[in-house]
């Protein structure tokens, strides 16, 4: 199972004086089961890119294919600029070439930054079952899904009947994430899900995503935190000025010399320190530095 973007370009404020190209010929293939990070400066187009994945934004041109075990569905294939609908909001988008947009949204769950602001129901359980209900499940089935999702994010039955607005910030965010998980998506897109959390909250949140990933869900994570990328992701994709400039494993990326030039992105600490020591003429082999422990081992080896 995989999702593929082919030559996707996106213009912001299309056909107005302030038109600006945000995405430039993006090619991206995401396989089932991956835990992939999208990194890049603010304004590089990461957020725009992930919104293409579930059809919240429809590109100016490009192709999105959704591949199942047996079938291959072309969700859209826009060869050139479509006749433009002035309303930028793609919910209103009614282009005949776009098929199965609702199915796509169900398969690709999207968690925005500060998702706690999407809660609106009177109690936690109804809020979480809202998504599944919208996708056609009966009330009981939806609530069953909601209960499972809430359990997965670590909120027990004592929370079910509480108002989402009286919970703490971290709990609210968990409820919002459960609201997406309850839709049983195959792909989960997370746009800076740990923003504004303290280090413990951040750690808990990432462990939760790891748990979700272990159930076979593909995770696509937008983040600025390179320690998280290093620890949890098996693939990292650098977005620079609307283009994908590299796709590799986190370690390959951080050990690569040319990455240093991207000053906007911090490498994890142990890499930065290793480089600093190399600059001070310590003969450390950067290829062997994979964590703080291996860094200490390398230092031990070269100093004696």
């Amino acid at each position: 199972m995989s999702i593929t973007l082919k030559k996707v370009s996106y213009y912001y404020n299309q056909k107005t004086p302030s038109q600006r190209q945000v995405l430039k010929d993006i090619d991206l293939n995401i396989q089932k089961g991956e835990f992939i990070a999208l990194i890049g400066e603010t304004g590089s187009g990461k957020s725009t890119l992930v919104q293409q994945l579930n059809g919240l934004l429809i590109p100016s041109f490009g192709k999105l294919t959704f591949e199942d075990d047996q079938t291959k569905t072309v969700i859209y294939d826009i060869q050139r600029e479509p006749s433009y609908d002035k309303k930028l909001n793609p919910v209103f988008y009614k282009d005949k070439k776009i098929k199965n947009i609702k199915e796509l949204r169900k398969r690709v769950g999207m968690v925005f930054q500060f998702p706690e602001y999407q809660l609106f129901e009177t109690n936690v359980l109804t809020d979480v079952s809202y998504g599944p209900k919208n996708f056609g499940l009966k009330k009981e089935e939806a609530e069953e899904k909601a209960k499972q999702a809430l359990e997965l994010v670590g909120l027990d039955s004592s929370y079910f009947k509480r108002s989402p607005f009286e919970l703490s910030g971290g709990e609210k965010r968990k409820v919002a994430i459960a609201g997406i998980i309850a839709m049983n998506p195959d792909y989960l897109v997370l746009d800076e899900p740990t923003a504004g959390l303290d280090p413990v909250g951040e750690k808990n949140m990432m462990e939760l995503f790891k748990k979700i990933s272990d159930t076979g869900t593909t995770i696509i994570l937008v983040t600025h935190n390179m320690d998280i990328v290093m620890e949890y992701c098996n693939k990292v994709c650098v977005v620079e000025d609307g283009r994908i400039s590299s796709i590799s494993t986190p370690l390959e990326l951080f050990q690569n010399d040319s990455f240093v030039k991207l000053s906007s992105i911090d490498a994890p600490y142990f890499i930065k320190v290793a480089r600093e020591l190399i600059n001070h003429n310590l003969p450390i082999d950067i290829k062997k530095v994979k964590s703080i422990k291996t860094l200490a081992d390398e230092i031990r080896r070269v100093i004696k």
Partner: protein
Amino acid sequence: MQKKKNEVKTTNDHPDYSKYAVVFDNVSFFYNENTPTLKNISFKIEKGQYVALIGHNGSGKSTLARLIIGILIQLSGDIYINNELMTDDTAIELRKKIGIVFQNPDNQFIGSTVRDDIAFSLENMCVKSELMEDLIKEYAAKVNMLDFLDSEPSNLSGGQKQRVAIAGTLIRNPDILILDEATAMLDPKGKREIFNLIHKMKDENPNLTVISITHEIDEAYRADKIIVLNDGEIFMEGTPSEVFSHPDELSKISLDIPFFSKLSMELKGISKDVSNVKSMEDLIKVLCQ
């Protein structure tokens, strides 16, 4: 919520706190009687100190900041700002010497342009209109926003908006500057910008007392003093090296220690003495000798 205190105190009733910018004497505060937000907090912050306040979300840090600036009034205990007792009546006057920058860049941009936002503070101070333009330019230059004077907030990054907030705060010429997680919603670049700016300000004006509420452990390490809050109580207090020399204690409340401390612990038993290093630069220097 804001009960008047029964006992009447005058400024002469208390020990001499003229050395200190902020003194908390047994202060408690709660929104809900069963769950106190702050319990019997006592600490002293010297004038010109750079103090980092760390602890989890919900440990009471932001409430503490709001008590210092007198937006909230304590339910018991005494708070002294610049050797004067904070009460309902003195709050407005004492607040004139305190500036605070909050977390959310969007929710603290008052004017419709950078210019107007900085001017808002001046208008409240009743500065003469003719003098405003120069002051606005001077402070915009201090925070590197001179090129954006006519920009609207929707065209600015989070870091830029926070810099404007700092300018609007510093222009009031405060003795005490509080940063209430001012970098929490920024990207790494924005965070760096803000911290560098604060250190620049501190260098230019050594008398400025800075209280930084933060989750950034490495930033906290650059402070003169660290106060660790946990569940509304002071868990630890001291210089950064004192506080971070108790990693086990800190890990009990799941607080991290700076990277170089971790690394020097990993390096125990190495031929060079790394036990007393104070920063990453120190550690690298020792290792490269």
